[in-house]
Structure formats: structure tokens, C-alpha cells
């Protein structure tokens, strides 16, 4: 954890509060995310994990209290895989709307190989399973140069081996000075320190 807490935070949230349907999901929630940190947002269904992540990445811009400052452009992976059924996995990454980078074919093939989609590069995505769609989406983690990753349930519909590989990817991203904020119902088995943000009680453990 040599890089932790040094320099300006990648993401700062100040006294966030959210009320949905008359229920207070969280209030006075402040967090600073620095390079080299992995934050795990946990809590039961309906605790506001996804809402919090959407506030942090900037998709939710009103309806909550507090302020969010981002010093870098984050990479956000949401519930939906953003995979077009009409395009092949390779094209999906080539033509991605996230505006991150124009990737060369070799890099895309390597990334698809890393998520276990070797041999599926050029088949239409509508023939792939839901889990394979998620994997195409996860391949963006191998391509991206974003320092801050915001991941909403990245392990959904991914098999155990895929989960392990993704977790080691997260660990190496954090070791390289990046930061991860993620929600997951699974407990994380990663080789780095996990900061937990529990929405059950609105406290930071």
C-alpha cells in the first residue's frame, strides 16, 4: 500500500445523502478514494449501492445531497453490459461509445483472450450467452487506461474461474496505483487491502 493516501484523491464525495421513496438510504456519507485503494460497497438489496455508484460516476446529477468531485475520468461498468447484439465482440470494443480510445485489433484480441472469449471474436454477439456478454464488457478493463474504476456487480453471471481472474485483475490494477470502487454481493478474495463501505448502517468500516 505504498501509494495510498498520497496526493490528490481521484474521487471525493462530501456528505452524500439520498432519500428514495421517503426512506433515507444513506446520509452524511463522505469518502475519499485515492490511487492504490479498493473500495467495496456492501449492503443488502435496496440499500442504495447502485444509486451510490451512479452518483459517484456522475450519471445521477440531482435528487441527492452533497457533492462529488472527480479528478480523473472514471471507467464505469453498470448492470447492463453495453454490448450490441448486432456486432461481434471485437466490433463491440472497436466501436465502443465510451469514447475512451481507439484500440488496435491486436490489443482487443488479447483482451478478449484474457476474458476467455478466444475464438469468439468474430461471431455475432446475439449468439453469445449473458455471461459472455458480461465478459465482453469486462474486457474493457484490460484495454482501459482509466485510473479509477467504478464497477457495479462485475461478477454477475460470471463463472467461478472468471471471478477469480477478475479479482486478480482488480488487485493488479490497485497495485499499479489505480483505484477501484465496486459493489458486490460476494466477499472479495483479493491480495490487497479492501476498504469496506457498508450501507447497512451508513458507516465506514
Amino acid at each position, binding site marked *: 500500500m505504498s501509494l495510498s493516501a498520497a496526493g490528490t484523491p481521484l474521487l471525493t464525495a462530501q456528505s452524500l445523502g439520498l432519500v428514495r421513496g421517503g426512506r433515507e438510504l444513506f446520509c452524511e456519507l463522505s469518502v475519499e478514494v485515492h490511487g492504490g485503494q479498493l473500495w467495496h460497497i456492501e449492503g443488502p438489496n435496496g440499500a442504495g449501492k447502485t444509486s451510490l455508484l451512479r452518483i459517484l460516476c456522475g450519471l445521477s*446529477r440531482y*435528487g441527492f445531497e452533497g457533492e462529488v468531485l472527480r479528478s480523473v*475520468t472514471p471507467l464505469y461498468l453498470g448492470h447492463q453490459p453495453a454490448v450490441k447484439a448486432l456486432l461481434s465482440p471485437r466490433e463491440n470494443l472497436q466501436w465502443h*461509445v*465510451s*469514447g475512451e480510445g*481507439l484500440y488496435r485489433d491486436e490489443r482487443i484480441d488479447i483482451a478478449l483472450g484474457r476474458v476467455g472469449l478466444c475464438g469468439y471474436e468474430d461471431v455475432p454477439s446475439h449468439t453469445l450467452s449473458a455471461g459472455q456478454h458480461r465478459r465482453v464488457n469486462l474486457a474493457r478493463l484490460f484495454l482501459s487506461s482509466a485510473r479509477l474504476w467504478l464497477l457495479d456487480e462485475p461478477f454477475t453471471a460470471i463463472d467461478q474461474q472468471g471471478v477469480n481472474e477478475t479479482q486478480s485483475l482488480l488487485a493488479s490494477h490497485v497495485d499499479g496505483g489505480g483505484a477501484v470502487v465496486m459493489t458486490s454481493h460476494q466477499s472479495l478474495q483479493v491480495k490487497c487491502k479492501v476498504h469496506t463501505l457498508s450501507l447497512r448502517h451508513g458507516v465506514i468500516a
Partner: protein
Amino acid sequence: MSAPHTGQFCVLLLRRQLLLAMRRPIDIANPLLFFTMVIVLFPLGLGPAPDKLASFAPGVLWITALLSNLLTSDAVFRSDFDDGSLEQLILAPQPLFLSALAYISAHWLTTGLLLALLSPVFALMLNLPGSALITLVVSLLLGTAVLSLLGGIGAALTVGLKRGGMLISLLILPLYMPVLIFGSAAVQAAVTGAPSGPYLAILGAMLSLAIALAPLAIAAGLRISIDA
């Protein structure tokens, strides 16, 4: 790997939308087929008398073009909303209003442009004088671009709603009316031998205004819809 420039990104989006349209050609053909079939309804409803049809032709062609544009507007952002691509587009570092303009351009290229180019065939079926054909094509080229931009506003505002189809017509049809007035007037003028240039110029002015302002409204609408 640095993020692509705004211009590069817009071209990428445009090509992506066109590629997606080419992958499902029926989506391109549908509005054209719709246009054809509605045109056929008019002689059936109004009677086949050639001079009567000719006098109605400018209005009929324009209203039909407007309706087929309206029906396709709903789909501009719908599939990207459903599969999560729209979230990614909004988070992209490039300005959203230019990305929206790229989407609308793709929409126009696959609907309005083709419709305008095909319209002389149907104009002849409705007995429109040959002298008005060029005006018809030019007015449709300019006018459908305005319609696509206005339709994009409606699409952006209703993309998050389950039943957007009917609502979008209620929202944007009033906005379509000036385009209809000047578009059909241009063709009418050409039929009677009056100069149609001024009307086309007004359509061009509307297009300039729409290009300048509509993308901003579309971008605002998309951000609101994704947040709802």
C-alpha cells in the same frame, strides 16, 4: 492510449450507427415501405382522378414523409438505452451534444435522405408535375433533417419511458408543423410555377437553427432520461 478527439469520436459514432443500421437492413426499409403504403392509401381514399391527386400531392407527400420520420424517431436512442450503451456515451469525455448530433446524422442518412431520393417515384404516381420534382427532393432533404433533429429531442426525453411511442408524437408533432407548412408550400409554389427558392431558404434557416440548438436539448434530455 489517449481518448480520441471530439471530431474523431463523432465520426466513429456516425460510422457505428450506420454499421448497425446496415446489419439490420429491414430497419432502413421499413420507413420507406411505410411511406409507399401510406401514399397508396390516398388515391384509394380520395379517388383516382389525376388532377385532384395532383393538387393534393405536395401536402400528401410531405405529411407522409413527416409520419414515417416520426415513427422512426422513437428508435434513435432506444436500443442504446436498453443495453446500457447510453450510460457509457453520457460518461464519455467528449461533449454529449456533438455525439447526439452524430446519432441524428446517422438517423437522417438512413431515413430522410433515402426518402427524399425515392420521393420522385411516388410524386409521379400522384401525378405531381415533373417541374416540381427537384423542389420536392430539395425540400425533403432540408426538411427531414429538421424533423430528425426535432424528433431526436422527443426521443431523448422519452427514451427512459416504457410507453414512449405515443407520447413522442404528442410532444414533437406541434414542433413539426412549421416544417410541414414551408415544405409543402415550397412544392406547391413549384407546381404553380412560382419561385420556390424563398421557401427552401426558410427551410434552410430552420435547419441551421435546429442544428445549433436541438443537440443541446437532446443532450439535456438524454442526461435526464438516464437519471430517471
